């Protein structure tokens, strides 16, 4: 394999990893804190991408579109959290999984109703290339990576430097104690859920120019997001970061070697890791 191919492969993998990270961080946080599996994150991802499309077509500005997507998805997440999830936090895990899958399917139906089933292209805001190690790399991909890095730093600072973030971290360890300290658990849950939805929408908006936007785009990344979350361990932020980097590179480099490997290799890797550690690399051995 030539070094040029390798460099562009690694950059491609990093940008994939960034998208996976932005979506799965929400899934992981929701599981860690609220003990729910929120498959509807993929709906916010789709909504974010579609709004990026619509607004960028209307105004010609992609950044505006991404911003609109994040805001709309956050409002949607707030609504869904208030109306649906608030009632099922106490229930078993399967409960939230089925309900959120229903929300995802229903949402896809609604998206089809609003925007139709035809895949839509989103214009790149700029198509500059930059020369890196003798290879031309699209700047936009580097930007996606930069955004993910910024988000990671932001999340880290939020969880470690603010009182709400510290409460969330404490809640992941032991929710009852946090409630015992007089912290409003319901508000904590809402903040986490809305944050997760907004990040998923950010992922969708950022990724939209690199792919075609279509109603099933959420289901297409679903398998990869799951693999990231499972390999990293549910509820672990560090694990999500490492495993998204891992899965992104395996998908990208794997597809360079032999195209079908892009799908099969991460799956095989996940099975191997689960054989050794049934709760993923960084997953805690929490009770069911």
């Amino acid at each position: 394999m030539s070094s040029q191919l390798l460099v562009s492969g690694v950059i491609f993998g990093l940008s994939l990893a960034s998208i996976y990270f932005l979506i799965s961080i929400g899934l992981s946080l929701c599981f860690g804190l609220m003990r729910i599996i929120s498959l509807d994150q993929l709906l916010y991802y789709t909504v974010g991408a579609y709004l990026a499309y619509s607004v960028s077509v209307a105004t010609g500005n992609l950044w505006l579109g991404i911003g609109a997507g994040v805001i709309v998805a956050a409002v949607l997440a707030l609504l869904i959290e208030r109306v649906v999830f608030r009632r099922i936090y106490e229930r078993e895990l399967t409960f939230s999984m089925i309900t959120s899958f229903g929300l995802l399917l229903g949402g896809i139906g609604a998206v089809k109703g609003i925007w139709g089933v035809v895949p839509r292209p989103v214009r790149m805001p700029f198509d500059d290339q930059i020369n890196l190690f003798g290879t031309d790399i699209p700047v936009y991909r580097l930007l996606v990576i930069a955004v993910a890095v910024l988000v990671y730093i932001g999340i880290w600072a939020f969880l470690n430097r603010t009182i709400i973030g510290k409460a969330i971290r404490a809640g992941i360890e032991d929710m009852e104690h946090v409630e015992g300290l007089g912290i409003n658990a319901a508000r904590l849950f809402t903040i986490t859920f809305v944050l997760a939805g907004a990040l998923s929408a950010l992922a969708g908006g950022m990724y939209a120019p690199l792919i075609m936007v279509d109603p099933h785009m959420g289901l297409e990344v679903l398998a990869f997001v799951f693999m990231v979350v499972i390999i990293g361990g549910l509820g672990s932020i560090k694990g999500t970061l490492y495993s998204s980097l891992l899965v992104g590179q395996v998908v990208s480099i794997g597809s360079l070697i032999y195209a079908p490997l892009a799908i099969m290799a991460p799956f095989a890797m996940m099975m191997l890791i689960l054989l050794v550690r049934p709760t993923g690399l960084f997953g805690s051995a929490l009770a069911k």
Partner: protein
Amino acid sequence: MSNILRWWSGIFIAFAALWAAHWVLPLPFMNEVVVFSIYTIGCNFLLGRVGFISFGQPAYLAVGAYGTAFYLYYFGTDPYLGMLIGVLAGMVFAMVVGLLFVRLRSDYFALVNLALAVIIFYMLQKVLAEITRGDNGLWFLTNIASSGPFNLTRPIQFFTFAVLMAALVWALYKYLDDTLFGACCLATKVNETKLEFIGYDNFKIRWLAFVMANTTTAFAGTLYAIYLGFVSPEMTSPARTADPVVVTILGGVGSLWGPLVGTLAYTGLRDVASKFIGNWELFVGLILVFIMMTNSVGLYGTLEAWARRLFQKNAAQENKA
């Protein structure tokens, strides 16, 4: 003897009624209902008896269907042998996958299973496209021989055969409920520590239950293949992974008749709804969320409660008189 008769009578009446329904309802609809209900009972068993939520059922359905399809498309013509091959393929697949999967915690199990279904979908659609013909699917209706006790190429004879098979599957699951194994399955859902303390192996019980349920699902897959004479990756597409779970919950989780009632309602609703609204996903999603939110016991549970109340009222009146 009378015990055996009573044991069978419920199944006999239900499936005789189901068979008779083809005089009233269109035959393609009834065929769909029968095969889909076999598809659902595996999921129902996993969810209701073992406590595994499986969004990956389409994977096993597809393995069964493609097992049959490969035989009928490339090698032979005997539909019965094709079915056997499909079921065996599904069983072996479930045995291998089960070894890896049933060790996982229920949340990981659900996620991994769904990932498996998506992987199988991409394999059938892209990776193995040379032998599966990708999205075009395999067509082999004309390859199916019309020999054997039932001429499976004719819808009405296929229907009779499918109803017979469904009755046998139901008898099997009804029998399982009475056995030690069935009790163990329920125990592993409710309290695995206690079960292990008594001396049973949770892993073995779960694995056996997993293989059983998914072999049933693969059997439904082979029936689909023979009935339609056609398979395509569409059957395991990510948008359809929830179908059996929706039907299971709609019908009532864990009850023997839930899958049948649920399938009737779901298929009926789908046929009616698709005439008025083209947006199927929105509809399924809303049903799913609605049922979960109202915390319902499913259609069968509701019907059963009604029937019981009705009978009790009648009995009370008779007592007074």
